[in-house]
């Protein structure tokens, strides 16, 4: 007993001395740092604003946020995301994911439904549905986007047009006329209409807009019918193929969003098909077309004017070490204040319908009324949720098929037939006419 006490005293002395010696060596736990990767367009104005937002978040919560840059095209982004979303990789905690990705990356993210029930209940249901796989809310809508028509108000006025074209055919005529007029002014580089013809996801969006507006179906319908091989779709593709080299540059088949925007901002195009974010750069100080353009819904066809739904949602990685903080960041980024501020400063379209009625939002962005309407009625969605993981293949097959028509490699009917077969092979679904569309050729 006494001996034990003696030993205990000795040990205690040792511990006290050693701890005195080591007291200097102890460290303090670092605050939580989240990593955030955003696929948004990295325009300087946008980056600046986001930086401010994140600083505000850190001030409010004490949570640090590191921002990762991302590649340009969705395909490359997808590759990077997949690279980062692996167990054991200290990848980002919060990701923005493209609206077409939930079906593909579903398993890598947490179900956000328990955290954002109230936020999503009041949102655009079509958009929310795009981020929902089964019953799981893979991401919450963050940056909602839609294909829009940018047009030069000055040129329209100059050439006697009061308003932007309502149909694709009208656009073709107007573009040709303005182009001819401008070329006559020795603007050799001037083009009537620029869009995204490179074989990327953007082409899928463009082509979908063309054929959907003409009643050519949405590639794969909600009833799981493959609808590409029909006269309306073929006609829409043929029309676009006709644009290349006529109202659109021959390099159009290699154009991505940036190339389109480059030409547009340079003032060398009368019309441009692009996403909402093109607005900020077009309107930036020093832009040659500042205050010389406006935005409208895309032209329509037989069935109406539709724009492809784009945009991103915020998702929380399943591999995050700080899921609670990550959810906090998401909550902050979709908060009303941030959305209002963003809409004002970078013209980002809010995800909540009620924000479109705020005077402060509309004052800065009069065209948001248009968007609000488009989000309710003028949306065409890519078949990402129907095809799930096979969407990439489907989209790839589709864009390649359309691209081959644009470059003239194949005739549109031939390509449509081949695409139909391939889609049947990929998805195992049945081909059929689009709902309410014309009979098969």
């Amino acid at each position, binding site marked *: 007993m006494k001996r034990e006490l003696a030993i205990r005293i000795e040990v205690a002395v040792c511990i006290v001395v050693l701890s005195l010696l080591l007291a200097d060596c102890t460290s303090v736990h670092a605050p939580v740092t989240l990593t955030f990767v955003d696929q948004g367009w990295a325009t300087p104005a946008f980056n600046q604003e986001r930086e401010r937002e994140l600083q505000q978040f850190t001030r409010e919560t004490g949570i640090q946020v590191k921002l990762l840059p991302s590649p340009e095209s969705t395909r490359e982004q997808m590759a990077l995301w997949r690279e980062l979303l692996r167990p054991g990789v200290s990848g980002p905690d919060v990701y923005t994911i493209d609206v077409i990705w939930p079906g593909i990356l579903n398993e890598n993210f947490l179900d956000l439904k328990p955290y954002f029930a109230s936020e999503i209940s009041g949102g655009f249901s079509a958009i929310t549905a795009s981020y929902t796989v089964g019953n799981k809310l893979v991401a919450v809508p963050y940056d909602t986007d839609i294909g829009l028509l940018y047009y030069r108000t000055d040129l329209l006025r100059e050439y006697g047009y009061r308003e932007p074209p309502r149909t694709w055919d009208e656009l073709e005529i107007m573009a040709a006329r303005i182009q001819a007029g401008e070329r006559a002014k020795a603007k050799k580089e001037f083009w009537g209409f620029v869009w995204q013809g490179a074989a990327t996801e953007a082409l899928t969006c463009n082509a979908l807009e063309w054929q959907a507006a003409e009643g050519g179906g949405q590639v794969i319908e909600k009833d799981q019918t493959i609808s590409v091989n029909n006269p309306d779709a073929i006609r829409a593709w043929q029309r676009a193929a006709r644009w290349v080299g006529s109202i659109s540059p021959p390099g159009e088949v*290699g154009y991505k969003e940036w190339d389109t925007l480059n030409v547009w901002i340079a003032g060398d195009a009368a019309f441009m098909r692009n996403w909402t974010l093109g607005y900020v750069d077009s309107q930036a100080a020093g832009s040659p077309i500042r205050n010389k353009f406006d935005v409208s819904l895309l032209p329509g066809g037989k069935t109406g004017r539709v724009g492809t739904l784009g945009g991103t949602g915020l998702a929380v990685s399943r591999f995050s070490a700080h899921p609670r903080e990550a959810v906090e960041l998401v909550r902050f980024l979709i908060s009303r204040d941030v959305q209002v501020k963003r809409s004002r400063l970078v013209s980002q379209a809010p995800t909540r319908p009620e924000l479109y009625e705020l005077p402060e939002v509309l004052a800065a962005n009069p065209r948001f009324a248009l968007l609000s309407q488009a989000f309710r009625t003028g949306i065409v969605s890519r078949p990402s949720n129907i095809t799930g993981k096979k969407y990439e293949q489907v989209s790839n097959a589709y864009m390649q098929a359309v691209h081959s028509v644009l470059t003239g490699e194949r005739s549109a009917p031939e390509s449509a037939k081949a695409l139909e077969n391939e889609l049947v092979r990929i998805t195992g679904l049945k081909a059929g006419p689009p709902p309410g569309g014309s009979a098969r050729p």
Partner: protein
Amino acid sequence: MQRHTATEFGRLVKRVEEKTLHPARLNIGSRLILCFVFIILVMLAADAVVLWQFQVVRAQAERLNGIDQKLVTLLRVHASLLEFYAGLEAIAQTQDAGLLVKEAGALRTVALNDIQHAVSSFSLLPSDLQRDPNFLPTIHVIQSSLTSQLETIIKLATSGDWRAVQLRLSNQVRPLESMTSALVEKVDHDAAEQRTETVLNAGRVQRLVFMIVPTTAVFALLIAATLGLAITRSITQPLARLLEGSKALARGEFQHHVAIQGQDELAHLGQVFNDTARRLRDLYAVLQSSEDRLRLVIDTIPAHVWSAGPDGTVDFINRRWLESTGLSLENGGWNWSSAVHPEDLTRFVNSLHLALAAGGPMECEARLRQADGKYRWFLIRNVPLHDELGNIVKRYGTSVDIEDRKQAEDALRQAQADLAHVNRVNTMGELTASLAHEVNQPLSAIAANGHACLRWLSADPPNLAKAREAAERIIRDGQDAGEIVRRVRALFRRAPGEKDVLDLNEVIGEVLRLLGGDAGKRGIEVETDLDKKLPAVVADRVQLQQVVLNLVLNGIEAMDQVADRQKTILIRSAWDGPNAAVVEVQDNGAGFENPERAFEAFFTTKQNGMGMGLAICRSIIEAHHGRLWVASNKGPGATVCFTIPLKTSGTQ
């Protein structure tokens, strides 16, 4: 505060000391080992801390190195990208799609190689440096962007849209530069921070090491001193107690008890010491009681017990002596000679001196005066006690009362003498006829010679010469007869055992002459084989004659029944060794049926015998220090032998 700490520490040390000062539960060896182990552990712990701190500094240095590497890697990527952009722009200026396709591949390969190199060298960095989440994704972005940008540009160029190419180069490709620039800036910033941190860490470690080393030294020294003091004290205190106990034991204080604490070796030693002391005490008590008992035995046994020094000076006599002699220690008790009978004193003293001189035991019978003034016979013996070297250190003696034995011996001797006499008389009776014949011969011769003498005298003229011859024969025969009678008388005279120097053969001859007639009458041939050169013996003539006579008579009688062979009796004398003679009487008669019983008194095979003959013969011979035994013959009959010492120059 410092003073307070010091007192606290002092109290702590004291407490530790208290606990460790009496760690007698532990062995001394274990205690020392524990002490050293503890000190070594303290040193090791301090060394470990110092090493750890050095390790920290080293890690910091490595980290710094890593950051620099990272920065260099990044700068290389940046430079490579700049080169790539510049190259692309230069080609774009030419508006030569073919050249672009050709060169772009090479440019991309160079840039991608550099990037790949950067990635792989990044992966070699310490893992905590790799944790920078921006680095790899940025590189990835640049990598994939480069590829896709290049593809896009080639596509635009091949479709001839050089304007789109240039726009893209300036609007999208160039800005990539800013991505790496930002990264470079960030890493540079990090590196600066890390450097500062490392320098701070190094300084801290230095301070810590400067603090630890002397602190440990002082601490270890303190512990060593405290524990050393404690252990020394824990050893010396019990040792002092043991020393005290040993001294007490040396003084004979067996009851001294050493106080014992703990369980260590010294405690064991103390216990052993106490056990030893107790056992010594017990042994001493046992010894004392044993001595008392022994003294009681010595004092009460029916014998005188005494001891003397090597020179014979008596230093102990028992109480029995005093009681027996009536002497007291104060009153001549030691003067043993005063108790010895004056007649025996000389013999006793001689015997004692002889024994003392020879260094051997002594045995003597002497009369001692008793308290009542009467003398009694005692057998006095003493033996020497030798040490290892053979020197006599002590003599122990006893005197046992043998008065009764003496008297019995005398009585026995008398009885034996009487018995021998009776035997002789008895033998005489048996010899009567023979003696009568012996005596009758000279008597008849005397009578015949007397008649002849008378006839010669009465003849005319008287033949005086013849008469004289006859008279002379008468005288001779008379003398012969007288001699026979004298011999017979001598044989049966009850003479005391006077020993004379005798010729053994002569004695045998006398007996044979006495028996000659009788033997002849019985038809027995008497043979002799006597060694004429035998020296004389010292013996009682009559008794020796009696023995020989008895033996020959026994032989003659044993042959009474023999009819089938010549009865022969052989008497032989010879040397028996250098100092004795042996006499054998051999007959060829019936022999002994039971030779051993032949010597028992009153055992006889004769019809008219007393059965005392051989027993008496043996006692006579043994009285002469000889032996008598019966030996078997090869043929029939028996041989009885006896030895008798020869007279040598040494014997009395």
